[in-house]
């Protein structure tokens, strides 16, 4: 599988996830009569899904690349079923953050952090993955905060603290998930290369 194809696949996965998860977040203040689906899907700014897609493409390519540079190929649970499980858990974390009513923000952020780390431990368990996830979470939170400060983008919820508390955890889990997908996609490529070299 070509690098470009991988990137495109990851991009679309990112866009899809962004749309669906955005919808989940919108449901927090879902009205009685659901507004038109199209408008609710694109209720946030148009540039959010492409951004998420690009980010996921970058992350998904970055993970296997880093594995290769570190020289420690990721061997843990390299199967599509495991990847699917990971995606499901990630969606579940989002679901929980959107639907479950937490007593306070600290509880929310602690729970989400525990869930995210649990996700990492269950499906990744590599130090590079953890480090990269932390880095991504930090960077993405920083970027989103900058955007909010500059007024480019605003959260519907006025609770500033609320937004800040769940965002890094979601970013971390998302980074791990997309990295997982990227690694799995890269494994196909590796397989093809290995077969080729084998034949040569």
């Amino acid at each position, binding site marked *: 599988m070509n690098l470009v194809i991988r990137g495109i696949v990851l991009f679309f996965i990112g866009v899809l996830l962004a749309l669906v998860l955005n*919808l989940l977040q919108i*449901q927090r203040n*879902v009205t009685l009569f659901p507004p038109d689906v199209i408008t609710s899907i694109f209720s946030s700014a148009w540039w959010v899904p492409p951004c998420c897609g690009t980010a996921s493409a970058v992350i998904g390519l970055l993970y296997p690349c880093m594995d290769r540079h570190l020289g420690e190929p990721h061997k843990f649970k390299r199967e599509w079923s495991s990847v699917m499980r990971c995606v*499901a858990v990630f969606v579940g974390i989002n679901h929980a953050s959107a639907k479950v009513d*937490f*007593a306070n923000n600290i509880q929310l952020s602690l729970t989400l952090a525990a869930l995210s780390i649990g996700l990492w431990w269950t499906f990744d368990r590599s130090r590079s993955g953890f480090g990269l996830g932390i880095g991504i979470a930090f960077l993405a939170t920083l970027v989103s905060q900058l955007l909010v400060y500059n007024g480019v983008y605003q959260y519907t919820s006025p609770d500033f603290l609320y937004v800040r508390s769940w965002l890094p955890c979601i970013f971390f889990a998302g980074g791990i998930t997309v990295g997982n997908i990227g690694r799995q996609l890269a494994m196909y490529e590796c397989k093809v290369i290995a077969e080729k070299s084998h*034949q*040569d």
Partner: protein
Amino acid sequence: MTLTEKLREKISRAFYNHGLLCASYPIPIILFTGLCILACCYPLLKLPLPGTGPVEYSTPVKDYSPPSSEPGHQQGDPSERPDWYLGAPVAYIQQILVKATVSPWHKNFLAVDVFRSPLSRVFQLVEEIRNHALRDSSGIRSLEEVCLQVTDLLPSLKKLRDLLPEHGCLLLSPGNFWQNDRERFNSDPDIIKTIHQHEPKTLQTSATLKDLLFGVPGKYSGVNLYNRKRVVSYTVTLALQRYDSRFLTSLRSRLKLLHPSPNCTLREEHVVHVHFKEEIGIAELIPLVTTYIILFAYIYFSTRKIDMVKSKWGLALAAVVTVLSSLLMSVGLCTLFGLTPTLNGGEIFPYLVVVIGLENVLVLTKSVVSTPVDLEVKLRIAQGLSSESWSIMKNMATELGIILIGYFTLVPAIQEFCLFAVVGLVSDFFLQMFFFTTVLSIDIRRMELADLNKRLPAEACMPSAKPVSRSQTYERQPAMRPATPHTITLQPSSFRNLRLPKRLRVIYFFARTRLAQRLIMAGTVIWIGILVYTDPAGLRTYLTSQVTEQSPLGEAGLPPMPVPGGVLPAGDAKLALSVFPSEPVQLSENQTQQQREQKEGPSNGQPEPGTKAEVTWGGEDEEIWRKLSFRHWPSLFSYYNITLAKRYISILPAIPVTLYLNPREALEVRHPQEANRYHSFFPSSLGKLEAVDRPGEALPKLQGHRDVTLYKVAALGLASGILLVLLLFCLYRVFCPKNYGQNGLSHSRRKRGDLPCDDYGYSPPETEIVPLVLRGHLMDIECLASDRMLLVSCCLVGQIRVWDAQTGDCLTVIPKQGLRRDSSGIFDYQESWDQSPDPKNGLEDPFDNSHQLKRMLSPPQPPLFCDQPDLTSLIDTNFLEQATVVAPEPRHRTVCSRHKDTGYNFGRLVEKVYEETGSARALSCGTGEGGCSARRKSLGDEPLAGFEKSSPVSAWAGDLESSVWSLDLRGNLIVAGRSNGKLEVWDAIEGTLRCSDEEGQSGITALVFLNNRIVAARLNGSLDFFSLETHSSYNHLQFRGTPSRSSIPSSPMYSSNDLIMCQLTHTVPCAHQKPITALKAAAGRLVTGSQDHTLKVYRLEDSCCLFTLQGHSGAITAVYIDQTMGLASGGQDGAICLWDVLTGSRVSHMYAHRGDDEGWGEQGWIWDRGWGSRDLGCGASLGVISDNLLVTGGQGCVSFWDIGYGDLLQTVYLGKSNESQPARQILVLENAAIVCNFGSELSLVYVPSVLEKLD
């Protein structure tokens, strides 16, 4: 032993015992598990079914009071009271159900008269209801006080603004269509159009405006042109804010008084409370659907990994059932202990499945499947369980730990989720252990029974070959050389054209099952059925009319009840309707006149039975709102931005109102345009009037006119289509032969059953590949050897032929012509013919036609055949006997007999031969012998003087009893091991004997020639190590082979003038207890496999035995070792072992299993296939061409298989005449030619695409 290890061992033992238990009593355990599941799921019956449908709860209307909003104070039985029944409802719905009919009915009434006048009465009724007021001691209470006041409609419903009340009471009636204005109604020319103007054009799913305003389902309203019962029903729907029983009672009694329903039996006892669930919008649905898609992807990817079982689908289903029922059990158990689920089950379900996971099940399956097959099923299950026990327990503990951590988040929702997950995990573990393991054991047992047949589609499809033909194979090392994979460096894509693509297979599947035709047929039948049923003139209408006429409630069934002309009570003077305009509405045409005459007819005292209608109140009217869409009320309230989600409404018993309208009234309200429209064709004559006596059908006939032409066209089209099809069919029958499309002549000679076919029953076509047949051997070919360029074959008489593997030319024949046995002259004659140019056969090689010449010669010289030695007696392949014969002979201690220019001294053996053969034949064919030798002497082209010097008789007599059992080829040297224990080294090009060793007496069963070492395995189990030494010019080795063909340097070529010595370096006298059957060397190691079930690994340099590998339970039949020190062995028990040569340990033991370790598993798998086929007695042999192409030999054919998919790619037939001959051995050469040992012929088959690639 640490604590962990102890624990581990205990767990493993427990699992082992459990596995034994499960596999021993599968049926009782499955029953027990099923009972457990049912018992645990029993509490689920109390839970409401999931879904968004409304839930009902009814209370008696007598002394009803709204429930209190606190859950604590509840009167009545709390167990029956649903938990939503708290607080006041959103609204009380009071429906006034009106049934109206025009009675008596006149024959000349129009269809619109059925509903026009009844509808006109609604305005009056609404007024009555609006103006109703209750006067009592507390004052006057009007409807405005108790009704539900509504405000603005939703802004998106602008078009309904005129139709739905926007301010004040929520009171709906059909009059809303005309803004509750009677004048508008009267001036409306087309009522139907007005009513239907807001109906959706497409399929209607939710409540439409017509339903909302009429309050009854559309088909019950009777407002259409086909209403044959002539009863119109509609409701006036009133939404009340508060429940005022006295007000309602007064309203009820007043309406009943005004419009009595004499035969009404409606029970008015219960208030029904309808609770509505939260509706799921599309916005919520998308994430839900996404999670479910992810879930299904997860299940798909998981169950795809189940492999090597009898029924993949069955096990996948069992795995899913395990998880699902564990979830159900968890919910059931939680409910049993008092925890009611508050979470949305549909939402958390995918996450629960994902958390519980299918991993354990898959791990179990894999572990059990990879146990040795030869074990009993019980033991396999037990071993599989115990080997995975530790990891299963560890995983389980980890998951429980994680979930327990989640429990301490103290978020109620998460806690509940975790609780379900914990119980689900435990019950899942229980089910895995009992249910799934047992199912797995049943599956494995079934596979044991089915065993090999399914595994080997090709061999199973072929008829079993003569078992005699290769019965000796077991006693000797089969000469099949395991072809190394990767001998050809080819892209797999070059085989694409060979492999049947998947889409083609799909198409073949369709074609075979005729799926498309059947589907179309079934679809057509269903479609026609639907058409017949739903057609307006079709079955349904007919049936309904039949039913209606036969029904006792039908109009004809009831005796006509005289109804007074004025239905209304006379005393009620307030009614506006009682004041009728005395003159009917102006009816212009003269039809009106006739109508009036008609109308007056019955009124004159001749009432016709059936023209009077009777309004009946049946049980179906009791709660007619139930027949409405369940979205009726939510959508009504949603128009006013009131949600019913998670709330309830109370529906009060309907008030029945019966209206009888006399014909005069009906005529009065008739709109003039209606009369024109519906009666434009109204006949003036009275006789014609009878024809349209049913006015309800006047319009259908009008409309049906267009329909009839449509039907005509359709029928014509259908008929012409059928005719066309019939015509084409006849044409086909006439012009096409009956066997069109069947195989041609060349194909028909083989029965389909004979063809190797794949799993799908599909046989690929025979190919155009013409195999290159190498003829020359007189007897069946016994062994084959090849390096890259040369091919050496040896037949039963010991004749070795060297062929060019590229062109198929015979290069050398060993022994040389003229050096054959003297006792039989046939060969000499043959050779003399060989030398002469053959005009008939233009074969490229003169040696090739010897076989044919022999046949040509045989008739004129019959006497020569009499002294041909009976060769079959020489082919003694019973090695054990042979060994005993040979063993007593004295062993010569001489190291090696070296000859350069001198012949062999075979005197010792000559005597023996003469004793055996010569004595018998000298009498009969003595003359021939002399002639033969003379002829032989005359051959001028004898290259070796040395052989001539020696006695030819003595030189070749020895071969009479010694056939070549094993061959190997390196460079230009052929090493042949004979049955009498002699080892010979021949020059392949020149056909000269370079050296020999005749020390051993036991037959050489296997040979390995590697570099300059020769290892010979003998029948008595000993191993001899020889080294070849060149004396003079070892240093100038030449390399043969063009570099363009292959970058690998070819074997060294010994020049013919070198002195080659074969020196016995070591002897391992008793390497094995039984004959050595397999011998392989690579990477400085030598592996022997013997019939004594063991393998031994020797170091090649010093013949030191490194390991003895035990593990097979049958004789070793095949051994493979490669440069990476990987070792695989296949045994007669059908097992394949993989060994590590460095440590001598067994890596893996498997049966018919493509293991995970790539390459190795592949190799092993192939071996196993080879094994299985031999077990079946097919004598099939096989080889691997490249990474993914496998060649198997069958009955007279060679089949190509795709290794990765197991598909049959191609079948090549090798000869026309000898179909019964199985291809015994297959040797894969570097240029992808496959050499098949095929009777006495060799066949070179080039895989075409490979050839193209290389050229």
